[in-house]
């Protein structure tokens, strides 16, 4: 699927980002190719899952920059020992070298056996940072474990043995829809910072990013001129309301409870021609506006209604949410706006 984004569409048509006039088509650099292959290999090795038990199949370990310098230092020390025929310098060099290897085991063991689970991806508006809560647990003490995503460093956690520790990772979002971080990096440099061991959690559950709310300049009521009569009717308020008996499926918020308490009749307030009624927030009421912009308008209106404590319904092409109010309703509407015409990333999908 091509996401609705003119930029990315252009990129799709012209993957190298050069105009047609450019004579040579540069090949992707060796570095990029290597990186892509490496990523693909890692992704095969670590399938998407919200939980991961880190073990030696999925832990990678390399010396850090400081570790490389330390190695160089050991070589220099060994040379000093050889040149001055100094047994004690030999001894010190071997001691530190052996400690380096032991540190390799410690760094690896610190990560090995840690259970990582994505608890609950957060929700938020496009442009916000979305919080991913990650829970870690290990049977052994695992100090100094850092979480990070490709975009942002996360918290540094210390996990006491057999205890649960939660950490939140903030991932910036850019556009509405499903937000699935490619991978969350779990790394440790314990004990000396000379080596770094890391693994990835590739979450399967996406966060939902709502459209960025944009308050429409015009009220949606006056969107279509032809409906002015109707609009007049509407402006007169509830007098025009038709009352009809309750049917199965009617929302409880719309039952006229006053009447019910008076004579026991379940009567539901119904408006004539609900299209364009103030209770309905409609995708179609912003003709000419870009689709994404319409969604942003609707998001702003949903928030407005919710804050005002008024009920509302939502109509999107192919999707209708009956009028209601409350947190659940708000959330359902926002989710609908976020995911409209977006396919959820498939579980276990590749890159």
């Amino acid at each position, binding site marked *: 699927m091509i996401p609705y984004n003119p930029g990315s569409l252009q990129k799709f048509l012209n993957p190298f980002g050069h105009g047609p006039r450019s004579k040579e088509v540069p090949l992707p650099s060796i570095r990029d190719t290597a990186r892509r292959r490496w990523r693909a290999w890692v992704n095969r090795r670590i399938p998407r899952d919200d939980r991961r038990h880190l073990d030696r199949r999925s832990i990678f370990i390399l010396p850090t920059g400081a570790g490389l310098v330390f190695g160089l230092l050991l070589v220099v020390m060994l040379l000093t020992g050889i040149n001055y025929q100094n*047994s004690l310098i030999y001894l010190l060099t071997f001691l*530190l070298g052996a400690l380096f290897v032991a540190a390799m085991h410690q760094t690896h063991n610190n990560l090995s056996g840690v259970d990582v*689970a994505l608890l609950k991806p957060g929700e938020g508006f496009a442009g916000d940072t979305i919080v991913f809560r990650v829970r870690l647990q290990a049977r052994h003490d695992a100090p100094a474990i850092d979480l990070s995503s490709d975009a942002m460093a996360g918290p540094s956690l210390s996990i006491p043995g057999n205890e649960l520790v939660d950490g939140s990772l903030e991932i910036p979002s850019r556009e509405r829809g499903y937000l699935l971080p490619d991978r969350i990096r779990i790394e440790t440099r314990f004990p000396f910072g000379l080596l770094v061991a890391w693994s990835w959690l590739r979450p399967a559950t996406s966060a939902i990013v709502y459209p960025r709310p944009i308050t429409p300049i015009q009220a949606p009521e006056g969107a279509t001129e032809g409906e002015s009569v109707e609009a007049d009717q509407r402006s007169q308020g509830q007098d025009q309301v038709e009352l009809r008996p309750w049917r199965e499926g009617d929302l409880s918020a719309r039952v006229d409870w006053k009447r019910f308490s008076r004579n026991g009749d379940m009567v539901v307030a119904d408006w004539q021609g609900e299209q364009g009624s103030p209770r309905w927030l409609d995708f179609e009421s912003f003709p000419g506006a870009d689709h994404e912009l319409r969604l942003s308008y609707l998001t702003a209106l949903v928030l407005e209604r919710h804050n005002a404590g008024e009920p509302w319904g939502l109509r999107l092409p192919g999707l209708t949410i009956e009028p209601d109010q409350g947190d659940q309703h708000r959330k359902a509407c926002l989710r609908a706006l976020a995911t409209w015409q977006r396919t959820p990333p498939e579980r276990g999908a590749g890159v």
Partner: protein
Amino acid sequence: MTARVPMLPSGALLWLLSGFVVLLLPQWDRLPPWLIVACLLLAGWRWLAQQGRVRLPGRWLKLAVMGTLIAGYIATVSGHFSVDTAASFFVLAVGLKWLETRNSRDFFVLFFILVYLAAVNFLFNQGIGWTLVTLAGVFILLVALQLLHTPGTSRSPVSGLRRLGGMMLKTLPVVLVLFIFFPRMAPLWSVPLVSGEARTGLSDSITPGDISSLAQSSERVFRVTFGGDTPAHRDRYWRGLILDRFDGDTWSQWQETPPTRLGRVDLDAGIGNLANNQYDVLMESSGQRWVYALDDSRAVSGNVTEVPGELFRLERPADTSIRYRMALEPAADDAGSLSPSERRRYLQLPERGNERSRQLASELADAADSDLAFARSILDRFRQQPYFYTLRPPTMPDDPVDTLLFDAKRGFCAHYASATTFLLRAAGIPARIVAGYQGGSAGADDAYLIVRQYDAHAWVEAWVEGRGWVHLDPTAAIAPDRIESGLRDAMAEEGSFLEDDWTSPQRYGDIAVVQWLSLQMDRINYNWQRWVVGYQGQSQMDLMSRLPGNIGLRELGYITAALVGLAMLVAGIIAALRHAGGRRDDPVAMLVTRWVRSLEKQGVTVPPGVTPGQLASLTARQAPAAGRLAQAFARDLNNHYYGPDSRRLRAGGSQKPLALRVMRRRLSAIRREIQRSTRNRPAGRESSSRSQRLS
């Protein structure tokens, strides 16, 4: 211009600072005092800055401090360049770096240079005590590094120390294997550690009076182990150098020592068993080329060579301790003869001066019928007339020989040796002063000898036609105790033995505990130096030659690589096994694991960190028949982990076998039900779903 104080963890910084101070300790007597004070001040500055009491210097102040200290350094070394002064500069650089320590990158830089400082310490101090101090310093540095990377946890200081200690213990076998087998190559290139500073020790000239300053030092010169019996005290004349040129005041060497090229001394004499007539000398660094040997010795180890005068020399000055091996071999009887030039040399005297002594020489020569008789008559004169052996001789500025022989009659070995040689030469008998050490005291259990500076001695050799060089010791005639049992006994009456050295344990030789302690310490150090510090190429080859096969350096390389590879393989296997068997230590936890696994086998998603109660409800949803049983089992588990007995159990008590057996039986019933549940329900119904996630 001021700089903000960066936030490095205070704990880590404090440990790193302490590591620096500990690593400075072994160099306290080598470094100029102002440099040590400056380093401590700079480190203190950094610590105060950490606490927010002062600021780290801005650029200009930093430059000023740097300039001042470097100027001070240049003034101190005044143009001498050697590894020694370079090491001092290194210390200065480390000190200055403290003002630049802002982030963890600087922290690493300091860590690295401090580790190298530890290696530099080993260049100058190899005693076991200072080795332990230096290793402790490195340990502290590692603690600091660990603290930097373990932020937060309150338990980390203690558990960090324990972890680091455990790590070191575990790596010890590998370190030892590497130490023994890593091929000791010849130096690739090298700069000797020549230092400009004066050292205590024999100098290559004697102005009578010099040796008395040595007599006030109990510093160790060398230690000897004999393959056979230790010779008697009076026979232990350790010849070092010959002084044969007299200018009226000072005796010096006729031959200038040829200048030495840069290079390194072979430090090692092998570790093969000592033959009966052999002895093994471990000499402390002296900065000189000469080594000490008994009469009639032959060099066994290749690092010493014989030079004319039956003396032995190293290839280069000894800038660290050196071990060499000699054999006693009675010389062949052919005495040979002196060449005319040699004769001239050994008869050389100043034209004038000491006239009374010249007079005495000719009188004695007239009375004696042979050269030997003449020599004997000199010794008799010393024996019969009131000459005294003293460490507090009067000064003798003019005609020292005359003053000693006729006026003062008080002196010590150098005075008498000088006078004797003068008389011999005046009488036409070739003679020379030999400088070295005499005697030496027994080490612990009489296993070896310790020769100290106060054993320094000078005696005479005279050329007797037909017999060669004859050993004459005027001191033996005046103070037989000095030769029979040493300076301490000789000076017992005068009380001048080590009178200025209050700290030397040798001064308190009459206190048994002090003596015993100092001997035990010395023995430990001696063995440390012989077997650990001195474990170099020759020793390694000797050790390897005892193993089957023809092991050379190349083979050693292979062996080292193989052993290290093996060690890493074993470590890897142990780690893997421990990981696999990690849950076996707790039988109840094993039960939980089995429960979770049996649910997962049926496709139920079990979130991590699930409680027993949640597991029970998952089970009930999957296999309703097992619901009640699962709840009972969950209660068992909760009781086990959180019940009244749980503290005792976790403290190491064992689970009652009965309770465990009941739990096992319950679990197998549950698992049977879970298995049955899948068979009974249609395959399409997938019980696992995300909504079951419990959080």
